[in-house]
């Protein structure tokens, strides 16, 4: 399995690789399936807290041959914060 990161996107939103790991490893996590990328790959958005308590959204594109690309990381949008709150209460 391999992982690559869009470091321009992460740097723009001041999100580190460590924080991406913390979101992926979170127990309280909300996942949202996104429309496929222009390349036709499946994509998901994860919403979870980092260890420092920052609520982030992390976008992942699934490439063939077990390759994953983190194409987005940012503080959770208003919509995703609401989605997180709604699904966590379920």
């Amino acid at each position, binding site marked *: 399995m391999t992982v690559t990161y869009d470091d321009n996107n992460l740097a723009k939103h001041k999100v580190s690789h*460590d924080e*991406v790991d*913390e979101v992926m490893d979170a127990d309280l996590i909300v*996942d949202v*399936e996104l429309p496929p990328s222009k390349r036709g790959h499946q994509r*998901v958005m994860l919403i979870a807290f980092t260890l420092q308590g920052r609520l982030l959204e992390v976008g992942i594109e699934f490439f063939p041959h077990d390759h994953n690309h983190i194409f987005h990381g940012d503080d959770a949008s208003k919509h995703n914060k609401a989605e997180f709150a709604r*699904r966590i209460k379920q």
Partner: protein
Amino acid sequence: MNKKKSHLSLENQKRLEKLKAAAHERILKREFVQFRVDAPMMNLLLKVASHKRQPLGVMLRDWVEHQLAKEAKLLPVPSVDLPGGHAINEKSPQKEIEKAVLDYQSGRIKLSDKEYRALMDWLLDHHLAEK
């Protein structure tokens, strides 16, 4: 992959499971944790550490270890069905869990990898708590 119901396809859930496991390993290997405190608390922490003549990091680590040992003992026992209608559950004494692990290791009983790992993790956490 999480305590909440996933909205993803099974295939995507499996890919995320692998990503989560790899991320978890990287977090463990950091052997480092940091957190924010406000200025008044920072001031108080420095004062207490100075009074105790300890470096702040050493003092905090001692506190965390002390509390962690208490909390680890409260971690729930994993529920595992054993052959012959027996089961490990929250009422099982530690000796019974150790026996199940030894029975599995010597081939006397069969457990799934996940069940074996859950029992071993629980025992390791307890062992660390008792150190």
